[in-house]
């Protein structure tokens, strides 16, 4: 027998006794004191992220740089029409060529109030690794796209259709040395969500 059939035969032979029905999963509400957007912002800030709500006519990149106390970036990759980049993601021949990106800008599919997460897929990222190799990540999120809970987020069709779906909840982080929290372990050093309705 090949290894596959041997393993499956062993699993069948050793099946545990009893019925073990699959339980239905109820939908649990999440507290949204102060409103869903406020809960989202509070959750994300506790995970090391920033949330900005710029004035309607403000320059997004300037707002972002000032809020993070950052100098003018050399390389900007933008996957959103609201921000102009200087390197086209469509022309990237190898993911490693994004190693020098200072700021990447993308738009989230949805946000999650419970945890402060934003959901991204290959469609938003264009090149997946831009969200990890960039030094700083800027995510646009329509407040109307925020769902209450992780449970609700899993209703999204992307989990059944996309190649790659990821929740980002704050920046890359580690506290592997004496529990001291450090942002920018291997991935982005900062994550900023700018609340901005989608262009219709």
């Amino acid at each position: 027998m090949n290894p596959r059939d041997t393993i499956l035969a062993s699993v069948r032979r050793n099946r545990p006794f009893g019925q073990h029905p699959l339980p239905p999963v109820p939908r649990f509400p999440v507290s949204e004191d102060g409103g869903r957007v406020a809960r989202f912002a509070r959750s994300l800030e506790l995970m090391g992220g920033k949330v900005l709500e710029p004035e309607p006519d403000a320059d997004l990149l300037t707002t972002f740089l000032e809020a993070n106390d950052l100098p003018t970036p050399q390389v900007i990759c933008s996957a959103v029409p609201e921000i102009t980049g200087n390197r086209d993601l469509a022309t990237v021949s190898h993911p490693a060529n994004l190693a020098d990106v200072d700021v990447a800008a993308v738009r989230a599919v949805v946000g999650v109030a419970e945890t402060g997460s934003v959901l991204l897929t290959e469609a938003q990222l264009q090149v997946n690794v831009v969200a990890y190799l960039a030094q700083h990540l800027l995510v646009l999120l329509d407040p109307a796209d925020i769902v209450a809970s992780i449970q609700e987020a899993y209703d999204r069709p992307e989990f059944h259709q996309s190649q790659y779906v990821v929740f980002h909840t704050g920046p890359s982080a580690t506290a592997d040395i004496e529990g001291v929290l450090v942002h920018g372990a291997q991935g982005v050093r900062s994550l900023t969500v700018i609340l901005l309705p989608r262009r219709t």
Partner: protein
Amino acid sequence: MKDSLIHPDLRSPRNEAPVGPDGTRLQHAEGTSQPLRTRSAEPQPRGAKVDGDKPIDQREAAARFIAAPEHARMHDERLWDLRRKRDAEMQAIPEWEELRELASQIKAHTLAHLDQYLEEFEANAKANGVHVHWAQDGTAHNQIVHDILRQHGAKRLIKSKSMLTEECGFRHYMAGTDIEVVETDLGERIQQLDNEAPSHVVVPAVHKLRRDVAEVFARTLGSDPDSEDVPYLARQQREATRPLILTADAGLTGANFAVAETGSFVVCTNEGNADLSANVPALHIASIGIEKLIPRIEHLGVFIRLLSRSALGSPITQYTSHFRRPRNGGEMHIVLVDNGRSARLGMESFWTSLKCIRCGACMNTCPVYRRSGGLSYGATYSGPIGLILDPTFDKRKYSTLPFASTLNGSCSDVCPVKINIHEQIFAWRKVLAEAHEIPLAKRQMMKAAGAVLSRPALYRAAIETADSALRYLPKFMVHNRWNAWTEGREMPPAPQETFHAWYARTHLKPTGDKVPGGKGAPDEPA
């Protein structure tokens, strides 16, 4: 949680962690809830001495760990802090117990129908264009991964942390090939550079202090050996590893969950290193234990809510990544590994250990683990979950491990999938005793304990005798070579009276009836 350190002298006057927009100190991921730091230099105690399949002497290694007070105290403090952060998260979720019950039932159901779910997962993954391989044991896993790498002419593999590859001895195997393996998780990279196994399933270098890391990095990365600045040390590793990531030929990840319905798998990290490993090279290999299956995407809404909260007391990991299809121009392989799991499924008392989602909550809460360090177990899995998994791999080598427990049950209380860990630890003691895998002294003690525990009157008499004996016996009679418990600690002070005597005195009416096994009628009305 303020001012509640177990070891107050570890409190740091200076906050080293980032702060949020309102100025409060952040404590997400595995960050401590209070600023801690060690001060004195002290050599790192090393793990258990491993000699073939000779029984591991956990006690000997634990004694050396306790004898390094700076390491022992920081270890104890950090893990207990994770436990308290977990409690705070739990208390914020009214449905916590319901979630645990659901998680436990979903896992039980999946394991009872594992053949169907494995077939469904395989069919969907294949339909997604993913290559699916099956490995009966660790060696087969290593050979399959090696073959894939060889076929692609790969010279360097970057990987994210995976307990399964530790279990398979993958890094050791690859050391005999011409392919370089680079760990990308900071803690795991520290352990790799120091040629040491991970000591904890979630925080692999939790037993090391900042000076230990500075020494390892100075030796291997050429960083400043005198620096005690943690962000500096983390940056050294980031900068040294990044060029290796950018030029790697293949990436390997584990998986926290594999979803039958979609053929996708989920990886949770705080560093984003699994996403780098999977998304920089064109070739992505995922090593997945067959027990990682869950039926549907909706079930992630239960498990993701439990995993990081149980592990670190953080609401979610920084990155929760779902891989379903290879990216355009890329190639994806899944290796489904048995390595004893299907056999464990048939062990009536132990099959539910396959529900484990490797959160490490049982380790963080365990008084023995916190004081002895993960490497003292000399096994891939340490702490309470290790005590019940390790003997399934080697009954003789890990025969002593189920005794490294007080059976206090805290591990079972915090387990997010409700594994009866402490009961399985006790059940393993019986199995090992019957298989004559435990020393005579322990067998005699268990026999005596069994006789006493089965007869209430005898038990109460024994307790009264033991308590008064504890009060009056000289130390040398309690601290003897048969009582391993007192090697690293004092016995607790004996209570003034037994519970039965106290209950009789304070709660029973003075009817003159003799309290069974007690001191007779209470002296005063309750």
